[in-house]
Structures are given as C-alpha cells and as structure tokens.
C-alpha cells in the first residue's frame, strides 16, 4: 500500500463516504444541477438555497466513488453559510489544490482532499460535486 494511497483515502474521506453530510433532496432550493462523469457513470445532483448573496443551504445526492462522495460532502460543509464571493474563492482554492497547484488557504476537512492531486484521474471524481454546485448557483433563481 503506497503512502500516496494512504493520503488519498484518509479516514476523513472514508468517514464522509460512509456518512455523507447534507446528503438529501432539497424541496425548496433556489437552484440545482446535475453532474455526470460519462467515463465511470458517476452522477450527482446538488441543490442550493440562496438567502440574498449567501448560501443558506446546500445538499447533494447521487452515486459515486468514495472520492466523489466525500468531496461533495466536504463541499457542502465548506460553502454553507458563505457569500457568493467566498464560495467562489473556496472553489478556486479547492481547484488549485486538487490540480496540484498548492493547498494555500485550505482549512478544515477539505485538507483531506489534498491527496487527490497525486492521482490526476481522480481529479474528475473530486470535482464532480463542486462543478455541479457552481452550475446550481448559475441556475439559481435569486
């Protein structure tokens, strides 16, 4: 078992995979969007509720690997309660981290996703929920 693999499947990731946060349908969302990885069939839906320019609530559902599920779960934790500008900044930091451009400014559980950068094939898995979140924001009725 390589050290890189240890880092990929940290216990935080496994926990979020087993017990994903905010893993539910949201009836009164301002917007939602689907994400699909045609290569592996993974699929996620993200719901967003806005309160002014703040993410009042965010949730997701879908099927996918541990990385995609944990990453979506961590995403919901990271952006809930944040302003749109903050959300964008978090997205950018996440993206920089998983594509190997450094983990600057990353806080909390999201750090556990840093191992992904060593596995370029898994960047898509880790990003699936994040891109769906961005798309849900774009779709959101203000």
């Amino acid at each position, binding site marked *: *078992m390589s050290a890189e693999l240890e880092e990929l*499947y940290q216990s935080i990731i*496994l926990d979020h995979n*087993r017990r994903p946060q905010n893993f539910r349908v949201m009836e009164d969302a301002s917007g939602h969007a689907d994400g699909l990885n045609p290569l*592996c069939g*993974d699929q996620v839906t993200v719901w967003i509720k806005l309160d002014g320019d703040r993410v009042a609530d965010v949730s997701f559902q879908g*099927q996918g690997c*541990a*990385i995609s599920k944990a990453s979506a779960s961590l995403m919901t934790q990271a952006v809930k309660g944040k302003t749109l500008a903050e959300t964008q900044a978090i997205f950018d930091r996440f993206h920089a981290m998983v594509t190997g451009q450094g983990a600057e400014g990353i806080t909390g559980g999201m750090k556990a996703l840093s191992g992904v950068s060593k596995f370029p094939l898994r960047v898509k898995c880790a990003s699936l929920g994040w891109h769906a979140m961005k798309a849900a924001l774009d779709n959101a009725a203000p």
Partner: protein
Amino acid sequence: MNPLAILRKDCERPIVNIDDFSLLDERDHLHYLDSAATTQKPRAVLQAMQSYYEQHNANPHRGAYELSAQSTEAYERSRKRIARFLGVADVDTLIFTRGTTESLNVLATAWGRANVKAGDRIVVTRMEHHANFVPWQQLALAVGAEFVIAELAPGGVLDLDHLAQCCTPNTKVVAFGQVSNALGTINPVSEIVRIARTTGALVVCDGAQGVPHFDAAVDALGVDAYVFSGHKMLGPMGIGGLVVRREILEAMPPYQFGGDMIALVGDERSTWNVLPHKFEAGTPNVAGAVGLAAAAQYLDGIGMSRVRAHEAALLAYTTARLTEVPGVTVLGPPPERRSGVVSFVLDEVHPHDIAQVLDSAGVCVRSGHHCAQPLMRALKVSATTRASFYVYNDADDVDALIVALLTTRDRMGLA
C-alpha cells in the same frame, strides 16, 4: 492436493512465453487483468509491422512499381491469413475497418439506411456494448423504426423466449454479441440465429469478445455479418474487420467514398470497384493488417482450444478464491457459460475505489459501466469491477487480485 491447489495448478503458468510481451516481461509486478478492454501485443506483431515499414512500405493498389506491389501483396496476404483464422472462406468479404465500432456503424449506416424503413423493427439485446446498441438506436430514431431490446433472464443470460417475442415479421435487424464484454456471458449463437431466422432480418454478431477467446468459425455461425477488433486479439490498434455475406455486401451501397473504392468517377455520377475495395475508401492501413495477420498467426500457434481452456482454468481458480473475500458478488451466469471475465461488486465499496487500490498493488482491472449502460440499469448497479484474462495471465495474477481485494476492504475501513 486440496481442490484449490488443483485449480491453481491448472493455470499455474501462462500459455505463452512471457518474454514475447515486453510490457509484461519488464514490469514484473504488473498483473494485467484488462484484456477485454485491450490486449498486450507480442513482439511478433510489433516486429511484423516494423518489418513492413522497413522493407515494403508504399501505397498499395495504385503503384506500378515493385515496392508498391509488395505492399499490395502484404495487405492482401494479411487479409487471406485473417480470413483463414476467422473461418471465412470468401476472402473478399472480409473488409478491413478501424475496429468493431466502425464495422457496426458501417452496417447501421450503409446497410441500415438503405434497408430499414419507418415501421420496421430493430432488435438488440440488453447486454450489448454501446457499439452494438447506439448505432442501431440512432438508425431507428433516424428512419422512424422501432428499437426493441431483448431482455435478460435471471442470471445474466439472454431470455430466448423474450427474444423470440421480439422477433416479429417486420424485424429487419437482429444484432447481438457473441460474448458480453461486461459479464463474459457466452451467448448461444445457433439458437439466437434460429430465432432470428424466423424473420427476414439481417443477423449481426458482434464478435469483439468472441474471436480472441475461442475458435470463431465465422462461416459456421450462420450469421449475415460478423465484426471484430484487432487490438483485443493481440493485434495493433486501429485495425479490425467486418465480414458480410457476399450478396449483401454487393447489394449494399458504399459507406465512404474516395480513392480505391471507385471504378469510374464522372462529373455527375460514379461507379464502384469490386469487393473488398468498394468498402475500403482511401489509403488502407497496411501495417495494421500485417500486424493483425501476425496476431492471427500467433494465436493459431497457441491453438484456440488451449486459449479457451486456459481462460476457463483461470476463471475456475478465480471463482474459487473469490469466496475468500467477504462481500463479493459475481455478476452473470456460472463460469461454464462465461469466457475469461469476472465482473463483480463488493459491498460498500465503489468499483472506482477498488480499481484504485488494486492499481497500487499492480493489478489492472476495469471499473465502470463497461460501455454497457443499458445492462447496468437492468442489473441495478451503476458500475462493476471487471477482471478479464488472456493467454499471458496465470495463477499469480489471480493471487494478486485476491490479496489486493482483501487490502481494499481493509483500506476502505471494512471489518
């Protein structure tokens, strides 16, 4: 010996000299279990292509000089060699294509557009690879035909009764795989053909997972069209074939237009060359054909019955050892009705994560929908993990797979 040891002994060594496969030879700890996706290539195949380029490279068919004649000869000799391997007597009915996907698109487009009309019916099976599903689905949508899927019976085999119900008199195409790439299911071709022949349909067999693994004996199958890929049978990428009964090929319009396939090009109309040229527009992939012929030669050297037996032995040993891994469910029919493919799910672990952990142990397996989304839906899984065997695999590969699966459970925090 205990029963497991006996099973292990039956597949203890590969049935080829592993030196023949540089990639496997040089990476000692690589356990390549993804031959259903593509196979590794023996030196003889790479050498044949290299020699062609170094000794006979020229554009065939169009040159009056000796080098071009040699190129033509290399190309047409390859066609003969491959036709012999396939059990196809009428050599010029073997058309070279890029592979299975292109071959099926040729049929669905060139034959399909000319012969399938609104209100007609096209029948495929639930276990088809997208390559033998989407072209027919899109043909049906384009011409307004009905697209019907013959469903599975329990156990991942085709429901022949349902197939018979699907085959109404207005059925114009019955397309099925010889072997499912996702499950390994070996389909009962002669029964399928018998049912399909109750209609006047074009009977199409996707042999992509057939011809690499047992004697295809294409003429004896009694189908109208048979398709395959070179890269899945030790051959190079970018070459494969389409075999169609001569009357059908002759009546069929060309698929692509250009050099070599024409007879006369007028300002307003054109006429076509004879078979096989009519269906091979443009400069052919001579080196690819030469490489594929070398692969056929190599497989004949082993003997297809030994290939089949070796895969069956690997499958039996794997099946036995998989019982050691808690939470594994193998999909599809019992091993006797499968080729060298094990498609499984592991409780609480996504196939993608399995493949990842296995990879770090040097075990290459495929995870995902295996280009068979319609089948995944019917099986109610989003993806599976698939290990597939070939001539260079042995019991060590299976052992590595089992150990890595146990590690995966561990790694994913399962008790």
